[in-house]
């Protein structure tokens, strides 16, 4: 028994594991905060796009020895600008525009990395490498997460109103455009942080899944944020811890945990889960008002038809 316990505590003996756990938790919590908004607006593709689009910036920064975040920021800015221009000037659907821009930038990042393999580790960019994060990078990530959390704590209600009903937000004097810019700036910054933790391909999970899981568990936005952040923090910390036993792949472990929790919520959530709705349907209470009205309309029409046929 003692042996098992000792073994479970081994990861905490290592400095790099302790760092990985708390940094992952911080990043996971911050991304989860933003995920509450992102998943409600159907902007998941944006999260994925940002995660990929900053790769060339990161690669160039690595070659020049510039800070990680600076390169990412420039690339993210360029991506947003390119998407905006193409969107304005063509009739292409938004998803195609986003897809086009981010895949092109990602390819550029790969090309740069393939030409300078010693300076840039493509593996690190795509898969993240929180276990080997440097102290400077920890400072960067901590600053990003701290500032993001502080701003969100101040503005969460304003952002909720803005994303729920923009017209009303304006009518009560909120600066809607500024708020949106702030939100997307924070999102880009958190994408950079998430990139270091789980890698470009899994950033989308960090900024979507915890919020969606929480959405299945509550109908109140405040609680949704609370649940989401709790999920983000716990899955990231536990994932980083478990990855010690699973030979790395921290990002994969964190995201797998998040997805499993989502599936659990999908099945077992008290009101919005599959089991609950099946129970309600069995009890005949699962009918929504709309469904009831539609059913009544159909019955009425059938009655009329029956009457018409009868004579």
């Amino acid at each position: 028994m003692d042996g098992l316990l000792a073994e479970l505590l081994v990861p905490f003996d290592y400095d790099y594991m302790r760092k990985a756990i708390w940094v992952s938790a911080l990043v996971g919590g911050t991304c989860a905060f933003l995920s509450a908004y992102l998943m409600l607006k159907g902007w998941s593709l944006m999260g994925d796009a940002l995660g990929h689009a900053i790769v060339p910036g990161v690669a160039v920064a690595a070659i020049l020895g510039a800070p990680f975040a600076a390169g990412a920021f420039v690339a993210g800015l360029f991506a947003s600008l390119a998407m905006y221009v193409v969107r304005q000037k063509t009739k292409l659907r938004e998803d195609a525009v986003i897809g086009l821009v981010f895949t092109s930038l990602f390819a550029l990042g790969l090309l740069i990395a393939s030409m300078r393999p010693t300076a840039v580790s493509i593996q690190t960019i795509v898969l993240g490498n929180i276990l080997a994060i440097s102290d400077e990078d920890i400072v960067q990530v901590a600053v990003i997460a701290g500032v993001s959390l502080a701003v969100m704590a101040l503005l969460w209600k304003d952002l909720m109103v803005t994303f729920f009903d923009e017209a009303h937000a304006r009518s009560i004097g909120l600066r809607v455009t500024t708020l949106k810019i702030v939100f997307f700036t924070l999102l880009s910054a958190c994408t950079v942080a998430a990139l270091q933790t789980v890698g470009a391909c899994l950033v989308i999970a960090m900024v979507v899944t915890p919020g969606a899981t929480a959405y299945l568990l509550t109908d109140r936005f405040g609680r949704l944020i609370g649940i989401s952040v709790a999920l983000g923090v716990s899955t990231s910390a536990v994932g980083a811890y478990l990855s010690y036993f699973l030979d790395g792949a921290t990002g994969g472990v964190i995201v797998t945990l998040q997805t499993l929790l989502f599936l659990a919520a999908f099945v077992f959530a008290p009101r919005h889960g599959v089991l609950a709705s099946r129970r309600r349907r069995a009890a005949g209470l699962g009918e929504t008002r709309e469904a009831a009205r539609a059913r009544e309309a159909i019955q009425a029409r059938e009655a009329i038809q029956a009457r018409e046929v009868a004579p």
Partner: protein
Amino acid sequence: MSMLADWITGPLAYPFMQRALVVSLLVAAVCAVLSCYLVLKGWSLMGDAISHAVLPGIVIAHVAGLPLVVGAFAAGLSCALLTGYLKENSRIKEDTVMGIVFSGMFGLGLVLFTKVETDQHLNHILFGDVLGVSVRDVIETAIVAGGTLLVVLALRRDLLLYCFDPGHARTIGLPVRVLHYGLLVLLALTIVASLKAVGIILVIAMLIGPGATAYLLADRFGRMLAVAVATAMLSAAIGTLASFHIDGAPGACIVLTQSLFFGLAFLFAPRNGVLARRRVPAGTA
């Protein structure tokens, strides 16, 4: 002139470059055809999702001793089906569900990959290994890509109608569900066929770029298909050759050449390009 000829023939003196070129051209053609439908239907994220989701399938197939193609196909398709099921049974938006499912599967794939001893190189799965394809790989790719291409071309009108107006397609008696899942199956097959050439991450670019470029250049679907295939194959050839000369990743070079074509179309397209519009006096709209 001879410099250009050297630029082209030089790399092709190597057999591995010949094979790479053939595979790239095949993959580019089939992806281009699919991309026209995806761009019109707004399914860019679907291509993104399925391509990421094949990773666990590849790993599991490897463990089970099955052909990797089978595992990849099964995983890609189950991603699409799972997305559909979760969407139907919850109030979460479709793109969110898709993001959750494919990132979850990709994450699982990574975890499995690190636990399994394989001779596969992760980078080759992610980014392709077109310079290392064998003759057998070329034949496999040709069969999958050729089959997919034939099916799409045979069904092209039905698929177009489905993408354009599913309601109408239903009313005139087309099997809409079959078309929906048929398109998903074709998409999964295309991604599987592209594994060797560009890998699962860059294939998304191949599934969006040519269609978007052609959309700017053609007003009719038949022409759109032709333009997409033409630009994609040209990009594949240029990209593959360029990668040899600059010693860069071939997949990335192909994708960037495609992006370049999109940029040219964006600026110079005869009717929809930025410059063409500028010539039209403002205010007539």
